[in-house]
């Protein structure tokens, strides 16, 4: 299913619930027990976090950049494994769109994209891990919502992937629309906006369903694949990623309805504005680079460009980097090590990947999408 078609369908249906949804995470290679070890680790981290929040004298504003520099690496809360967004390979190298954002931040600070420690987090543990200081930034396909912004003590500086929630079913069920799912049992991951959207959607359409919620995306998808549920629901991008892991991917179809808006982006702790700025401008540098035609390959030649916008972006004019606590060539570092947004997209989720997701809403604004780089000025 083409995400473009998917999103127009969503607009037609006008089914964007008041509470917006979420994401999940698969991990084909992490076996069941490994998954639980992760869960245990996350629980341990929550326990530590709780103890810390009881006795520590809270992290003061502006502290994150200093502590990252002191540690010598960035801790990045990532998915336990979602193809295209954040997943470790057999050698333990993390790749994905969300992973690239963390690498870009590390590149901007250290000029070295490998100075990142990835902490895999289940959906239900991720915000606690960020709140407690276990991770510096949470880049884990998390939906920005008002309550998360205002009640969880978080900030979502940018949206790095515009998504929406969809459904996957087995072909042999003969279902062609989510409206036909009355009475179905549906597998979902707990602690996500997905869980809330699902309830909203079935209530709004006066349909019944049986929800089966699991702690991790891995357990959720395995249960669906084993036949526990008729349908599996998550963000559309996640559906395409998960389908690759099914025992027979061609037996499953993604239904056309998109039932929610899922603006996915990195989250940081509320109150450290400098750190929020660094995350915001790292993403914007990648967007602006794409718009200005600056790529991983040509960034060094571009330094001699006479285009004032490129000069400001690459730090040959002005002192924009120093103003956020970085060096003036911060954007050069990001682009040289990670590439611009378009390059990262194509490599991880686009034509260069197994997912083959079209840019759709995630195209630059100049090409009809929603990704709009704020000017460096």
């Amino acid at each position: 299913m083409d995400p473009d078609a998917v999103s127009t369908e969503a607009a037609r249906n006008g089914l964007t619930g008041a509470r917006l949804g979420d994401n999940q995470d698969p991990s084909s290679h992490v076996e069941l027990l490994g998954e639980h070890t992760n869960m245990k680790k996350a629980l341990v981290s929550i326990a530590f976090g709780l103890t810390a929040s009881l006795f520590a004298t809270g992290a003061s504003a502006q502290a994150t950049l200093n502590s990252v520099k002191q540690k010598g690496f960035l801790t990045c809360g990532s998915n336990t494994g979602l193809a295209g967004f954040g997943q470790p390979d057999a050698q333990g190298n993390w790749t994905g769109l969300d992973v690239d954002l963390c690498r870009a931040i590390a590149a901007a600070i250290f000029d070295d994209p490998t100075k990142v420690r990835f902490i895999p987090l289940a959906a239900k543990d991720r915000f606690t891990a960020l709140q407690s200081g276990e991770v510096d930034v949470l880049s884990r396909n998390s939906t920005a919502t008002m309550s998360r912004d205002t009640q969880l003590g978080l900030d979502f500086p940018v949206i790095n992937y515009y998504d929406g929630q969809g459904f996957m079913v087995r072909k042999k069920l003969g279902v062609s629309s989510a409206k036909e799912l009355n009475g179905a049992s549906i597998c979902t991951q707990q602690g996500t906006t997905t869980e809330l959207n699902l309830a909203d959607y079935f209530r709004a359409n006066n349909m019944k369903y049986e929800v089966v919620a699991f702690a991790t995306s891995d357990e959720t998808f395995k249960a669906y694949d084993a036949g526990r549920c008729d349908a599996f629901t998550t963000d559309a991008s996640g559906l395409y990623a998960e389908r690759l892991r099914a025992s027979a991917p061609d037996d499953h179809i993604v239904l056309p309805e998109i039932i929610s808006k899922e603006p996915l982006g990195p989250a940081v702790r509320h109150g450290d504005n400098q750190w929020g700025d660094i995350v915001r401008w790292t993403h914007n540098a990648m967007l602006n680079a794409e718009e200005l035609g600056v790529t991983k390959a040509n960034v060094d030649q571009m330094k001699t460009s006479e285009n004032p916008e490129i000069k400001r972006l690459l730090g040959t004019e002005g002192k924009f980097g120093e103003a956020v606590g970085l060096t003036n060539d911060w954007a050069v570092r990001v682009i040289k090590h990670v590439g611009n947004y378009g390059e990262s997209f194509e490599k991880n989720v686009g034509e260069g990947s197994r997912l083959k997701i079209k840019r759709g809403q995630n195209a630059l604004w100049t090409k009809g999408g929603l990704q709009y780089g704020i000017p460096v000025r």
Partner: protein
Amino acid sequence: MNSVQTAVSQTSPPKKSFLYDPKVRGAFYQVVLVVAIIALFYVAATNAIENLQRAKIASGFGFLNNTAGFDISQTLIQFSAAGGTYGDAFIVGLLNTLIVSAIGIFFTTFLGFLIGIARLSKNWMVAKVAMVYVEVLRNVPLLVQLLFWYIAVLGALPQPRNSLEMGAGFYLNSRGLFMAKPIWASNIGILVAVLLIGLIGTFIYRRWARKQQEQTGRQYPVGKVTLALVLGLPILTWIVLALIGANPISFELPRKGTFNLTGGMQILPEFVALLLGLVTYTAAFIAEVVRAGILAVSKGQTEAAGSLGLTPGQTLRLVVIPQAMRVIIPPLTSQYLNLTKNSSLAVAIGYPDLVQVFMGTVLNQTGQAIEVVVITMGVYLTISLLTSFIMNIYNRRVAIVER
């Protein structure tokens, strides 16, 4: 030893300084400790509140009244995403934990006693089978067993469209066990009354039979009469009522729907897997407790019972088990507590127990980790203390009464 103590007390001055009085010192340290603990909690609480406020994280227990907005697969009370609050979700999770624990404790006691007694059987085969059961089940982590049951239960069962029909309105498929749901008519009261009469009758009959036996030594068929009064009488009433056209119970049978069977009652596979895992695992421990209890009863007791002419069954039931219970009950209580606490592993197989619903979904949707974790810990503590309390009362009843 004794002489040393006497020597010390002789050399120490008869009048002690107030500061060196061990009683005063003891009390002093106790007070210091209590104050330190209270101060620690106070510092932790105020510090946490301050940190939460600075981080703009919501705090307090007000969230319990907010609309939850999500659905739960097994709800013993009315709960829907539309009106249910986080507080209701908490109760749903709590009841799900309690029901799986209560049913689990019932079955695991039965199975545990059976296997414990079987391990002491004179039949070599029976004893070895029981031994293998105990060693295998006790030495494999519970989480692995739960996943085994869940995946085995899931994997082996057919899809809804090919549901196994087991007769009498029972169906089995990968979505669980489906059965007819009884619908009570308005005259169900008659049946309840008859059942009550049967129970009271049984109680009176048993007392009478016991008295007769003590006085005359004559034995009466207690088991058969109990069965007839408790089961036979209500069933007979039901049949009579049905024949005269006033059937008090009708059944709603599961029907085939678009996706799954609809109507009737459904038992979730998650529930079955969790129950099976908890019961079989805990039974292995209870079996060992029971075996230890029986072995603790002196062999002379069995021999004495045998010389009185009691059958082996009667010896076990009337002589050995009542004495073994004194040894069995304290460790049995801790196995009950373990089962209740282990039910929180439900989180791994998607059964909506307290931890899965409250510490999973609710914690994540509200972000109020401290409150949610404190409530959950309080609940498990309360359940455990209540179980201990009840078992202690029972223990006191069976304990040796010292004269």
